[in-house]
């Protein structure tokens, strides 16, 4: 495991759960602090807290706080979502930096720790709005929308994990920890691809993408992206270039072999066809027979045959489609934890030919003796000297 021997204290709420999950998947030993009796049954909690161990902290009980302190003395990284507290215990990023000089403290906040709006409240929808993502999703003239499944926490957690490791690289070289300041708003900007560059370079404001591809034809034609099929939708676009040409040729061949009406498609020489020069009437003429053809297909038929023909395009998958995708099955993406049949998304990367197994069931207790330098986390370390604990 790449991060074997790295001990992480995870004191985050929903905004930061993914960071610890990512680092756990890379092999770190992640201990999540939870108050006694907290709800660990929800799917969302289980998805992002599997592979961590839980340390129940009751600050009212004798020794509760000293257990956190002991753990922090041995830890390499502490993940926080200030000002969220753990059972009434506020872990202050600056105080942690002062007390544990080798510790990498990662503070994940909606708007970061600095700036005029650093104390503003936000949930996923405000963060997707604040980071620009909602401005780009929805009908061009309609209401901006978010992805119904919260994404901003993912963007924040993914950035936080990188920040933690950037600081850990430096800590290993210099002996000094650092304070990593993560802004979820700023993290969402990664979702926008290069859209902001249009404003900066040309003064052009990209708008919501809707369901059609626009801006490719000099005659203003728009290309369909989402096509109804028998059991949902297919994402398919008439592209140009070498990849588009092959796809278009293969689609027509597939339709011909299936006995489908070709209409305006039959006459097109794809070698010379250029999507940038087509007008709307031309585009409508080639799209009409395709719409009829796709309406007869299932999503899985399109996926399978499209792959066989090396075509671009994918079905618009539901979670049910994803859960039964043979590609994911072959790569062992969905995993169980020993002793339970519950399935989870496995570790996100395959390392040296193997997907690191999930080690801890969600809610597994961190039940070892109170951690110390000589405790279980230290003995697992390949280079104990490099990561030795310290007295604050």
């Amino acid at each position, binding site marked *: 495991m790449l991060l074997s021997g790295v001990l992480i204290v995870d004191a985050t709420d929903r905004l930061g759960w993914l960071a610890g999950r990512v680092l756990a998947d890379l092999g770190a030993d992640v201990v999540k602090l939870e108050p006694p009796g907290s709800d660990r049954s929800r799917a969302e909690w289980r998805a992002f807290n599997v592979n961590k161990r839980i340390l129940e902290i009751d600050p009212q009980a004798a020794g509760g706080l000293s257990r956190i302190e002991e753990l922090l003395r041995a830890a390499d990284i502490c993940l926080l979502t200030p000002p969220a507290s753990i059972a009434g215990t506020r872990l202050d990023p600056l105080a942690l930096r002062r007390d544990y000089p080798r510790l990498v403290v990662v503070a994940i906040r909606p708007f970061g720790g600095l700036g005029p709006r650093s104390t503003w409240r936000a949930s996923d929808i405000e963060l997707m709005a604040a980071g620009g993502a909602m401005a780009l999703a929805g009908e061009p003239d309609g209401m901006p929308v978010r992805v119904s499944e919260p994404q901003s926490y993912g963007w924040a957690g993914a950035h936080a994990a990188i920040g933690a490791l950037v600081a850990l690289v430096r800590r290993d070289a210099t002996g000094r920890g650092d304070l990593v300041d993560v802004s979820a708003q700023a993290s969402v900007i990664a979702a926008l691809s290069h859209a902001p560059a249009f404003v900066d370079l040309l003064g052009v404001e990209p708008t919501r993408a*809707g369901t059609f591809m626009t801006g490719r034809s000099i005659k203003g034609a728009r290309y369909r992206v989402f096509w109804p099929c028998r059991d949902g939708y297919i994402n398919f676009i008439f592209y140009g270039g070498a990849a588009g040409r092959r796809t278009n040729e293969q689609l027509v061949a597939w339709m011909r072999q299936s006995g489908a009406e070709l209409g305006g498609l039959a006459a097109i020489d794809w070698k010379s066809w250029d999507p940038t020069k087509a007008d709307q009437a031309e585009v409508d003429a080639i799209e009409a027979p395709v719409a009829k053809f796709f309406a007869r297909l299932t999503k899985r038929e399109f996926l399978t045959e499209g792959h066989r023909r090396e075509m671009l395009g994918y079905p618009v998958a539901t979670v049910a489609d994803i859960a039964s995708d043979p590609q994911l099955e072959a790569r062992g993406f969905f995993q169980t934890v020993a002793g339970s049949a519950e399935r989870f998304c496995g570790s996100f990367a395959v390392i040296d030919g193997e997907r690191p197994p999930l080690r801890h069931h969600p809610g597994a207790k961190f039940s070892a003796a109170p951690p110390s330098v000589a405790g279980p986390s230290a003995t697992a370390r390949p280079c104990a000297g490099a990561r030795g604990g310290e007295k604050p």
Partner: protein
Amino acid sequence: MSAVAQALAGLKVLEFGGYAAGPHIGKVLANFGARTIHMESKERPDGFRIQYPPFKDDRPGYNRSGCFAFFNDSKYSVTVDLKKPAGVALARRMAQWCDLIIENMRPGVMERLGLGFSALAERNPRLVMLSTCNMGQTGPRSDQPGFGSQLSALAGMCELTGVPEGPPMLLYGPYIDYIASLLGASAALAGVIRSRQTGEGALIDLSQYECGLVFMGAALQEFFAGGRVPSRCGNDDPVAAPHGAFPCHDRQWVALSCWSDDDFAALARAIGEGNLAGEPRFATAPARRANSRALDAVISAWTGQRSAEAAAIALQAAGVAAYPVVSMAGLFSDPQLRARRQFRVRRHPEMGDHAYCYPGFDLAEAPGDIVGPAPCVGADNDFVFRDLIGLSEAEYDSYRQHGVFD
């Protein structure tokens, strides 16, 4: 740039490939001090240089692409023609020099070029190599080509974007590629950390599809637990009500949400309708959801009288979560992002002054930076090959005569 040594100073990164999924990783590492070399060729430059707008002054050119610049600041560019045996030989030499290789070619291409991990690791056993592609390096569909813009549909995000009665919606650009590049950056750094400790390299196989599913983890978990298949629900939320985007006087929108009855009472007071919270039709979240049309009309009447900024400021002052739906232009003027120096202007040799985007995090003691503008194609051949790789004059001339730098 800070006088403090950057956190990743000394880390040597070499990139093969182009577009978004590979180069975005190297950019983030370069922002924190890694020396990142982007390898392309004059014959086949990075596709982002030529295939997609925007271009400076709307005039296409290898060194005029805003799309390329956005993901390649702070790097060095070298040109090596990998179709020539001497080019491959030079690439192998560079692979001995570096700590980390990031490549996003189609599966099998690096091996066919003689640049597969096992061949390179023989000479550089500490090497970490990250290979990122659509489907991953293995599996029945590993050979399937694809664009990130369409992969977001396969990974379930498009199905969950839009209103219930309408079709699925596009997400901008190759949305999923950036999930993979960010998770990939963590994996690459984890590989570097282990390599530095143990001397052992690593091969990281990153599937952009699988990375995207990480962001769908809760929906998948719910399906595994109870078979529920979620569908797009506009801006609704199962807990919060109201929860949505409301039109404002300035043709902008404001997003807001109430997560408790207290939140709603605060919102009602802030919009001058304090009595609403006491009405049975709005007293609880289920009641507010059942009467959402009437509630949305009341909120919209208020937001419609003011700008999105003013609405958000008033609601936040009342303790209600709210923010304008920030446009792309608005990102550059947003006071919070400005305070963080989210966009930083650097002078590009051909494009002049233009803005680069900083990552979503920073380090207090060893801050990163936009270290420099995106490089012009092959701009750093001399420096990289002579000063970093250590080619002699004779070697350098020989490569040039063989057309390796073309």
